[in-house]
């Protein structure tokens, strides 16, 4: 009997899933179309009216979207070998690896630091100001130091880049972990006390699971920050294979082939979205909590 009842429900659930997926894809297409329309419309209007504020619009400052897409399927003028898309995919993959390692390092370090700061008040008072001020030092100033220092230890250059990326990653994770761990429900803590639970148990079975939503919102920020860190870190490391290398290169030839730089930016953006979505997927699997509308 149960199976009879379950079957149509499973069917209905699948239908609902397909419908919501279709709605999402439709929405995505619509958003892209609107963005495309804005870009081309703005371009058209500014060129027709000859407006120069805030900047002169021409094929250098705002190439056509279709030109950018077309550039992906041409060999870049300066280079030899594969079409731009293939080259960029290699570069994206290269940068993704740096960013992923940087993200993992930064998230782990950030989480552990957050736990340490929350468990030891004294440490928090002593260390937190430095953690905060670390983020006021621009990444562009930190990157060369990391490269020189790690280079003298004969560490592979891509790993230096990962460390630079982790520098941008750890901070939001630390702050949110700390906040999450300290906002544990008071009665939930009393319950643990009534069981005479040790500090590690309280941390592991209560504080950390309760902090997960906070931690994940930080990871979403960090996931994209790690890509920015990796791209910026490639320049002082003189890495040519990554997106950062391509950006520096195409930047020099911007007036000749602006489409190339735009195409590279597009790939960087797609990589960022992929990282973000990956975190969201892990979040839906890991975080079990009441839907917002349930008290």
């Amino acid at each position: 009997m149960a199976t009879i009842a379950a079957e149509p429900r499973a069917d209905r659930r699948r239908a609902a899933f397909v419908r919501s997926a279709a709605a999402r894809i439709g929405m995505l297409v619509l958003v892209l179309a609107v963005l495309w329309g804005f870009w081309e419309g703005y371009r058209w209007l500014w060129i027709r009216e000859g407006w120069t504020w805030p900047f002169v619009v021409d094929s250098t400052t705002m190439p056509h979207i279709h030109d950018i897409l077309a550039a992906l399927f041409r060999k870049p003028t300066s280079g030899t070998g594969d079409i731009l898309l293939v080259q960029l995919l290699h570069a994206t993959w290269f940068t993704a690896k740096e960013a992923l390692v940087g993200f993992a390092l930064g998230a782990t370090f950030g989480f552990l630091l957050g736990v340490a700061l929350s468990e030891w008040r004294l440490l928090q008072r002593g260390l937190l100001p430095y953690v905060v001020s670390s983020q006021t030092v621009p990444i562009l100033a930190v990157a060369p130091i990391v490269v020189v220092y790690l280079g003298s230890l004969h560490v592979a250059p891509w790993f230096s880049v990962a460390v630079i990326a982790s520098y941008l990653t750890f901070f939001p994770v630390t702050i949110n972990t700390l906040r999450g761990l300290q906002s544990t429900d008071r009665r939930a803590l009393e319950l643990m006390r009534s069981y005479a639970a040790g500090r590690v148990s309280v941390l592991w079975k209560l504080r950390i699971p309760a902090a997960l939503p906070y931690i994940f919102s930080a990871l979403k920020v960090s996931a994209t920050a790690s890509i920015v860190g990796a791209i910026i870190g490639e320049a002082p490391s003189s890495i040519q294979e990554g997106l950062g290398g391509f950006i520096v290169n195409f930047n020099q030839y911007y007036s000749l082939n602006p489409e190339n730089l735009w195409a590279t930016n597009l790939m960087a953006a797609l990589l960022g979205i992929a990282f973000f979505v990956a975190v969201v997927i892990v979040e839906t699997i890991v975080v079990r909590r009441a839907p917002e509308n349930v008290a």
Partner: protein
Amino acid sequence: MSVVEIKDVGKTFEGGTTALEGIELAIGEREFVSLIGPSGCGKSTLLRIVGDLIRPTAGTVRVNGKPAPQARADRDYGIVFQDAVLYDWRTVARNISLPLELARWNRRRRTGRVQEMLRLVELGGFESHYPWQLSGGMQQRVSIARALSFDPALLLMDEPFGALDEMTRERMNLELLRIWEASGSTIVFVTHSIAEAVFLSTRVVVMSPRPGRISDVIEIDLQQPRTAATREEPRFFELVTRVREALHLGSDLDRKLAAPAAEAQP
């Protein structure tokens, strides 16, 4: 031997609020004692002192013959709060097994006990639901199952049914009595409802506020086991009236209402 022995307990909070003063109470094995009194008279405070969740500023509390902190360390009591306080990220089964995990029971023993508890609170089939998928009454039953899972000698309950509607509440009362009989534990129960206190208890402790004191202790000699019909017995109404009068005697407001003339005179 008393399960709970409260001797001359007082509690003054840091702010200077004296929540309790001169509390004397001994609770025997298998008793069901209700604490009743107006809001703010220190019922929760007293319960939390017994559970060593806070320390008294005067007097001593012994549970199972041991000082309260020792009893807490030995996990001698289970506690049920006014809200269920379930962990959202744990299923019903894993919420119930939380104290068992902390007491380092092995997985097989835990699973067996959780099943037993689910049957006891009539939640079989809900083990893999999450708390937010349950009604308030079901959540409260999970929290009772969790408190009972490790077989504590003493169960401390702070207005566990406060948030429920009257019908659910009466049903939960009957279930609680059934559980009490089956488990053989001693219960200290805080409530605002006179009828609930009389229906459930073997003894009702009436408290008065500012500072919180015990103003009366009333033996409830209704026949055991109690059923829905108990609520219709004349003796039930007599006892309800007894408790109500005791409550009103202990309250400042009623004292003033009873003697308005005396108040008016300079």
